[in-house]
């Protein structure tokens, strides 16, 4: 899995991602756009950006789109929306076409680097300018498909790996606090319950400048990172010996289990990630857990084991355990 944000020794902040929503007058939004017009628009954007070096990463016809969504390369809800769309990429930046808005320019930097991501985003904004002019409201700024994005059209998100907060069950209260401040904490995959991999982002896009919104998010991201470290210290203080036992058991179980439910795997991966961070598993690295986490998602299993996906839960647990044994075994070599 070649992901720009996945390193062998990741910190708590895995990636910094920013995106801008831009729309055209005279062209309906995705929900009101006939499929043939949507396909024409996708083709127009693809051919216009081709000279700038943007390649097609995936389209609605792409068979590996689910795997790309599982690996957080494209948004999950883009794959699920059912009407034509297109994802273009140039390195760690790109454009999503008809992901609710007509165009969503994005840029991603590994680790905690919003200034760098913003520099890249400005370049993408400049590349897509030839498709404009974009629709702008005299009072509210950039017009978008949803009132949740109007104004700046800027959505920034920090991808965070927070196994200690998840194990300590502190994510919900953190999420409530962030909501009050104008932020949002959600699972890295749209629509799923909060897990050890989360995205902290701005919820508000109107009434503040892009840089002000980013400064807020940077401050929240630092705070969540501190809370993750605090949660790890608290877990060690309260559960010391038992925690270490659970970590080392998980290391052994993943190499040998024949059946593994999704929830058990999630719990064990969180324990392993924490154990690695605490230095209890010197032969393992944080990136190993993340590769395991992404590689055992259902869509990825489907893509890799085409034809082997069974109907029942027991068989799926069998397949998941088998993939976990392979990935965890390879990581330990």
């Amino acid at each position, binding site marked *: 899995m070649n992901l720009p944000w996945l390193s062998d020794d990741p910190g708590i902040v895995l990636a910094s991602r920013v995106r801008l929503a831009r729309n055209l007058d005279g062209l*309906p939004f995705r929900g009101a756009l006939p499929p043939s017009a949507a396909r024409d628009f996708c083709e127009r954007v693809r051919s216009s950006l081709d000279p700038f070096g943007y390649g097609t990463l995936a389209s609605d016809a792409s068979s590996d789109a689910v795997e790309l969504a599982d690996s957080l390369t494209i948004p999950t809800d883009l794959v699920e929306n059912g009407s034509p769309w297109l994802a273009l990429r140039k390195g760690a930046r790109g454009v999503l076409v008809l992901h609710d808005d007509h165009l969503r320019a994005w840029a991603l930097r590994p680790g905690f680097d919003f200034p760098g991501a913003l520099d890249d985003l400005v370049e993408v904004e400049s590349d897509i300018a030839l498709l404009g002019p974009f629709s702008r409201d005299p009072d509210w700024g950039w017009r978008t498909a949803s009132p949740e994005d109007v104004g700046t059209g800027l959505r920034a998100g920090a991808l965070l790996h927070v196994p200690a907060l998840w194990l300590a069950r502190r994510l919900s209260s953190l999420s409530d606090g962030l909501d009050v401040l104008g932020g949002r904490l959600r699972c890295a995959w749209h629509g799923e319950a909060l897990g050890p991999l989360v995205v902290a982002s701005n919820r508000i896009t*109107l009434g503040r400048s892009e840089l002000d919104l980013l400064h807020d998010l940077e401050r929240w991201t630092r705070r969540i990172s501190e809370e993750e470290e605090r949660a790890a210290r608290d877990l060690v203080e309260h559960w010391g010996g038992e925690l270490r036992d659970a970590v080392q058991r998980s290391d052994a179980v993943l190499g040998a289990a024949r059946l593994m439910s999704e929830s058990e795997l999630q719990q064990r991966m969180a324990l392993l990630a924490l154990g690695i961070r605490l230095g209890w598993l010197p032969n393992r690295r944080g990136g190993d857990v993340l590769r395991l986490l992404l590689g055992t998602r259902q869509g990825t299993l489907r893509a890799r084991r085409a034809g082997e996906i069974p109907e029942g839960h027991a068989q799926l647990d069998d397949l998941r355990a088998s993939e976990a044994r392979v990935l965890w075994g390879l990581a330990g070599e």
Partner: protein
Amino acid sequence: MICPGCGRTWDDARRTTFLGCTRCWDTFRSELRNILLDVQGTAESHVAPPLRDQVAARRRIELERKLQEAVAREDYVAASALRDQIAQEVL
């Protein structure tokens, strides 16, 4: 009321939480003002420079801070390079 741009009603937009086209922002202006107060906490815009200018200004401030640090530690080679970089940014 029906949007002349896409033929959608306000009920359509409310049901899907998405507008039909950019003209819906004119057609359903008063309804949207209330929605903005709810989801954004404000219906007032903030007039900010274009993103490119904001980013350039931030970069210049950062370079000037580094230049002051270089001068303070008497690293004149670094200071000279930073001064040239700032001059280029201004252009």
